[in-house]
């Protein structure tokens, strides 16, 4: 099959790549662009380890074709920190021990960032349902939810 040329924006950078018509965005990110922060946990959109933000929406990059990135704006975990400064969510995940093995962490951070952009003050229930598309097998989610709550508080300018 002939490759498709794609022009897109990833983490504020203009990016061009060639991909096969049946190649997923996840495979493009990992295998062609060296952006390995997104993980393949299932390949069927059930685990959220490959989460990315496309035009402001959380997507499972394993369910998006690379060719669909044409003209879009993509955000991945590699673009979440501002240079050397971690995003509040990233900091709070470390502070709250919200990761053990860490394989699901990039996906959770991407999903949580998208949540706080649309809802800066989510309830615990809203956090839990928003993050229900991301599987974590280590933590039981307790410390993840607390880290998101604390990051949201900080981003709203409140003290703990």
């Amino acid at each position, binding site marked *: 099959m002939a490759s498709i040329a794609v022009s897109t924006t990833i983490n504020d950078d203009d990016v061009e790549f060639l991909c096969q018509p049946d190649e997923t965005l996840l495979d493009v990110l990992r295998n062609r662009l060296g952006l390995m922060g997104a993980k393949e946990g299932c390949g069927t959109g059930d*685990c959220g380890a490959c989460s990315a933000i496309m035009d402001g929406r959380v997507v499972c990059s394993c369910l998006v074709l690379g060719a669909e990135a044409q003209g879009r704006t993509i955000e991945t975990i590699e673009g979440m920190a501002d240079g050397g400064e971690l995003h509040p969510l990233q900091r709070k995940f470390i502070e709250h021990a919200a990761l053990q093995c860490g394989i699901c962490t990039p996906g959770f*951070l991407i999903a949580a960032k998208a949540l706080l952009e649309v809802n800066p003050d989510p309830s615990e229930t809203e956090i839990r349902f928003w993050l229900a598309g991301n599987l974590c097998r280590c933590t039981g989610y*307790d410390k993840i939810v607390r880290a998101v709550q604390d990051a949201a508080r900080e981003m709203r300018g409140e003290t703990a």
Partner: protein
Amino acid sequence: MSFDAAYQSKTFNSVGTRPLRPDGVDKVTGRARYGADFNMPGQLVARVLRSPHAHARIRGIDTSKAEAVKGVKAIVTAADLPDLTNGNADLFAILDNCMARDKAMYDGHAVAAVAAIDEKAAKQALKLIEVDYEVLPHVVDVDAAMQTDAPVLNETVFTTGIEPAPTSPSNVTNRAEFGHGDVDAGFAKADVIVERSYKTEQTHQGYIEPHACVANCNTDGTADLWVCTQGHFVYRQNCADLLGLEVSKLRVTSSEIGGGFGGKTHVWAEPVALALSRKAGRPVKLIMSREEVFRASGPTSATSIDVKIGARKDGRITAASATLRYSSGPYPGMWAELGAMTSFACYDLDNVQTVGFEVLVNRPKVAAYRAPSAPMAAFAVESAVDELAHTLGIDAVDLRVKNAAKEGTKSSYGPVYGPIGIGPTLQAAKSHPHMSAPLGKNQGRGMACGFWFNFGGQTCTDLNINADGTVTLAVGTVDVGGSRASLSLIAAEELGIAYDDVKAVVADTATLGYNDMTDGSRGTFSSSMATISAARNAIKVMCKRAALTWDIPLEDVYWEDGHAHAAGTKHGNRAPLSVKELAAEAGNTGGPIAGHSELVADGAGVSFATHICDIEVDPETGSSRVVRYTVIQDAGKAVHPSYVEGQYQGGAAQGIGWALNEEYVYGADGRLQNPGFLDYRIPVCSDLPMIDTQILEIPNPNHPYGVRGVGETSIVPPLAAIANAVSNAVGVRMSHIPISPPRILAALDGNG
């Protein structure tokens, strides 16, 4: 050099604090490298062909058409993995499981593998491999496999542990018995006897990272393996044995590991990837898909258990017995034996007997899963204890307190206990606010106890004092959940320096002596013991350097608060020398400063927990929801309390999934029906409440800081705690795990 591992009470400066983990930034920025995140130049892509049959003889495999596919560089079958196991049955089972030889033993069993320049060519080749199967009768159910008319999986298996030895083969590989006293006499003294049969279905560890490795065999006999594993030294040994490599020439590097829970203690694909690389002469990357992970890795045993407990009216248990049948997949295991050992470990019993039967079935080879075999046994026993409490009209906690094991109790599996935490966890449960909180409509409360042995094992650690006085700690136990932070705390504590001055790394197999894997909750227990020993050795070196610097006798130098001190007044008023000062002068006082340790970490303290949970059941749909959950567990000493809590919460969540949802579903054809996260549903964030934890610290007398393993016990009580809660909510005893909505509805309809 002798090392005294005995517990010494002390005030801690670093241990017990909650600093940031050293691998945190890498993991929140996507930079941490897991199994699939590594590549080598010229690397090929591997794919595995798997049996679609639960049980089939392999009459022949024709790979000629597949070999002709452009881009295919190597195809391997069992013929490329000759049997080098020299009659070692355990090793042969590993070999046969990696690649089927005479027979495919389960749906998903590997029969061939391809390495090609890309995934497309590899997949195309898989389709062109022709396997001539003779489909054989199969059996997947543990009870059915024990019947005399069941298809026999292995004609060479005769049940061991039975006198006289059987004369015909069967699927029961072993019978194991534990206990003491006279149970018949004990039951005769009982005022009340409860007796019931229980079943649990097969579950998977469900780590989010699929198995992945990059293998490279060179023509000079050297080889490298990058792999996500709980034990790279064990993988090295297994792979070297199976492929005929020299151990020293195979270098295994453990990647960051995306969850294991026991499931990454066994080689599956790694010997195959090495064989492909050897044949192709190029590096090979092999990643299992999620479907392959479900069909061909993990899982835990399915079980069938009978429990009988007798007690006097005052609640004292007079006798207890259990018969436990555990499936082990198509190869012998020791899973029922572990179940039989753990069944009644929480209790102080005069008369107890447990019997375990290992049963072969046409399902994947069972792998360890967090306190392997204990959750199912605890489900059956703790359900029976709850039923006994109801029958006697005694509070469930009080009944357990009355019969709890204590220091000096002869355990049901043999050893006599030292100081243990079962009593304290029960007392903590009794006084916990959760226990007296009001329940809502359709809600029930359950509690249960759990036990796990914990393990120590072979451990080797290097501690290097760098020129700037900072410390590099090289350990050989894979970090599955924050142990680099815990071990850095230990090194800082022992040396008297700041946590931030210690950097812990997991060394590869070429740079450190052998270490057993991170299993048996041994990671922090054993490597902390070795770290303390290594630090004490480094301190001895530093005291010598101080003596040399001061030109005073070594016996006049002592170590305190991170400094070498000159004892007494005869050497004048010498300012103590810090680690940094000693390190800076190391080149002039004898060279680099290091401490090494190699030991067998004996004395892993046994671990106990008590869990409380509230469940709400919807009587119309049978769906249920955990509304409150509390974990109380003895940690010995919590080195980094945040990660101890994490272990408690994570184990509870896995147990909740096992109790309520997770289940391997097989069709009549013996094929797995739900090999994906959509149909094999693990708990998601919206399924769970916050999981409260209470850490108790009853020091382990066999560890300098009193540390016990904490990783596994937390998965032991949940099955029973939830079953007891649901049973209390619906008024019917739930005896089949998972307690899924259809089973709850059936119970409510009187068909349970």
